[in-house]
């Protein structure tokens, strides 16, 4: 929405439709650590998905599918909530799958 629109072209009450919503890259907010999942320990309870305050936990159907590092702010809630310690916080430059 780089170009400012006149009032007639805005949805009622400023409703934002999916195509109009800018994708904010909030991954840059992380301050050194990012989550990494150990798939063999994951029991697919999806608590990480439920508790993620952003939309950074990816799910394929109903199966855990990793993290969206462009969105993850590194808050560590997922690692904290994981009941099997399958998520650990690792340095930014660590390899993830």
């Amino acid at each position, binding site marked *: 929405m780089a170009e400012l629109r006149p009032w007639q072209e805005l949805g009622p*009450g400023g409703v934002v439709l999916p195509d109009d919503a800018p994708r904010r890259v909030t991954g840059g907010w992380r301050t050194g650590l990012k989550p990494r999942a150990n798939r063999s320990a994951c029991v697919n309870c999806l608590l990480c998905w439920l508790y993620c305050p952003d939309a950074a936990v990816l799910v394929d159907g109903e199966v855990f599918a990793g993290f969206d590092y462009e969105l993850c702010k590194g808050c560590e809630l997922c690692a904290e909530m994981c009941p099997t310690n399958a998520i650990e916080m690792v340095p930014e430059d660590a390899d993830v799958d």
Partner: protein
Amino acid sequence: MSTETLLTCELLTGGEAVAHAMRQIDPDVVPVYPITPQTPIIQAYAQFVADGRASGELVDVESEHSAMSAAIGSALAGARTMTATSSQGLALMAEVVYIAASMRAPIVTALGNRALSGPINIHCDHSDSMLIRDSGVVQLFVENAQEAYDATILAPRLAEHPEVLLPVFVCLDGFTITHSAEPVELLDDADVQRFVGEYRIPFPLLDAPEATTQGPFAMPDYYFELKHQQVAAMASAGRVLDELVGELEGITGRRYEPLERYRLDDAARALVLMGSSAGTAKDVVDELRDRRQPVGLLRIGSFRPFPAEAVRDALHGLDEVAVLDRADAPGGAPPLFAEVAAAAHDVAARLRSVVYGLGGRELHPDDIKELFDSLHDRASATPTYVGLRSRS
């Protein structure tokens, strides 16, 4: 539309008449908090729900602030939503009323008009309505129980019209209308259902596949535009109201007038007012007309949107006009007078501002006669207040 619909006539208070309208509209959700003089509305409606005669989800919220907040969520989720309040309840609700208008939530509210504190008072004036004058909500002012019923039936269609999408308040004078029993003609339930139709809004929140963000933050680059949408929606509301009045008249045989011209033809002197006092004033107009006095009355049935052009047209040809406000504006012009004066800027008639009836002070026929007499005498001092005790 059939005009042969069987009408039932019942002896109902205005509050009960509104509750019947709610039962027949059968909204999905009614979040509400009791307050005098609105309570009879929601008490009667709650009885209908308890008796299985209405299927709405009645939500006992903890305050009017919560009532309107819940109403916004419900209306935008995709559920037809109604509520009711009065006075201090509206004052507490006011913050959220602005948000309902801004989020274009088509909520219908019955407002039993009551004086705002302080001093604390439970009786009628219009100061509560005037508190939300510029909030972006439609305000229909009715004269009696029958009109309270008719306007409530009309309100969802007005609120939900795609070119309107604004909250609508049906304003009925506290006690005088809410608690006074009158014969009220009720429509057939099925006719009301047919008239109001199905609830549709363009972007229901629970439409998950088409997920939307609603009520977004608006910085200086968009606030002005979004605020202006309400101005445009209000202009549409005036047009849509005129259409709906005709459509409802086809069913009821009665016409809910956004602007009622009462015996204005050839009139030289007229009053402008709204609410139940118009009933008393009409009797006085009739009596004076019988004595060949050229008097008339202009009753505002839609305060928001204000029918400015129609008011101006109606005032042409008059000599003296008194605009009666049932709310004062310390340090400024009373609200109805300000509207009429703005609308009548090029009208020759002399306008006078009169404040009456605050906190339930009665307006008697003799008061109105005296007012007409004082208008007759151009030299007389402008009567600013009617019914106020004042040391002369």
